[in-house]
């Protein structure tokens, strides 16, 4: 290897960091034997160190890391298993809600099975009671007239529950109930509920 060839090889040599790189070994050995090449190599490495030092002396402006961290985009990696889990949860929740709504609707709109009951309470004129909340002995005369004239009659039980009183289909009991307006009676009949509305189909009336 000539000195010129060794210089070409050592052009990339950076000092200790490249000490073990095989491509420099022969040229380095040559430099150990050739004082002129050794001088050149020393200057070369000094020059490398000087350029490196200048480059490494470049300092970023103050506050750059804070600026980087302030402006950092919030990552939103799409975890598809999580997305699917969420979708399934939403679907199940929606299905359960729909079923509950349907069930609730059916419950409120269904007719409970009719049953025979015995209820004690005041006979009401439903028109005045619902519209004006009128009942009791002071309203007895009005209620009597109203029921006799065909206004629907009701029964307000001791627990506050109000029933619409009816006879059997096609049968009107208004004439009989008019005389009992505002009085406390016990009625045996069939209770039926639809849409939350209570009806008591009279079988027997017992006066106190």
């Amino acid at each position: 290897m000539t000195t010129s060839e060794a210089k070409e090889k050592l052009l990339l040599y950076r000092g200790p960091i490249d000490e073990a790189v095989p491509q420099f070994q022969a040229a380095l050995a040559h430099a150990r034997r050739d004082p002129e090449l050794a001088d050149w190599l020393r200057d070369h490495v000094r020059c490398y160190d000087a350029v490196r030092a200048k480059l490494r002396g470049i300092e970023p402006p103050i506050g750059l890391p804070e600026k980087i961290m302030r402006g950092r985009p919030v990552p939103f990696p799409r975890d598809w298993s999580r997305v699917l889990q969420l979708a399934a949860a939403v679907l199940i929740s929606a299905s359960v809600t729909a079923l509950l709504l349907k069930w609730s609707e059916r419950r409120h709109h269904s007719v409970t099975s009719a049953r025979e009951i015995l209820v004690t309470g005041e006979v009401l004129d439903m028109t005045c009671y619902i519209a004006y909340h009128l009942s009791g002995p002071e309203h007895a005369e009005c209620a009597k007239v109203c029921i006799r004239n065909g206004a629907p009659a009701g029964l307000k039980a001791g627990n506050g529950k109000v029933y619409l009183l009816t006879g059997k289909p096609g049968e009107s009991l208004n004439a009989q109930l008019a005389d009992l307006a505002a009085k406390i009676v016990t009625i045996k009949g069939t209770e039926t509920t639809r849409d939350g509305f209570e009806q008591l189909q009279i079988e027997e009336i017992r006066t106190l």
Partner: protein
Amino acid sequence: MSADPKFEQLVQLYYRDLYRFGFSLAGNEADACDLTQETFYIWARKGHQLRDPAKVKAWLFTTLHRQFLQTRRHETRFKDEPIDEASPELPAIAADCVNRIDARTLPSFLGQLDETYRAPLVLYYLEDLSYNEIAETLAVPLGTVQSRIARAKIKLLQLLNETNPPK
């Protein structure tokens, strides 16, 4: 301040090196800051795709270099001087080489090099990367990297030799 300690740690660890690399490529502070920031933002979005944690540094340098090349497609800030592909003669290394290197003129010398040569040369000087790592960072073959560094270094030495040493 970031709520992500890993990200913060990564910034603290590499922002200086990336900034220096960016500054050496772009030649000015503003672009170097932009390149450094953008590199970390790309990391925040895509860094989780990197499988080998040992390659974080190389990944960051590669990303910054790509960003630089992208911005360079749209603008010409330096007049790049192509390096003669013919085997150049080795310039003498001035004895006062160290004195001729100035912190202000060095970036302008680097700016005179074609960007194809500038990036490997800066990595060669700046980072303690092996030639294989430089080649990997720039995604070019090892032989090409060494050839580019050699040519760029000769050009830089020529520019230094032409510079009047400070009196």
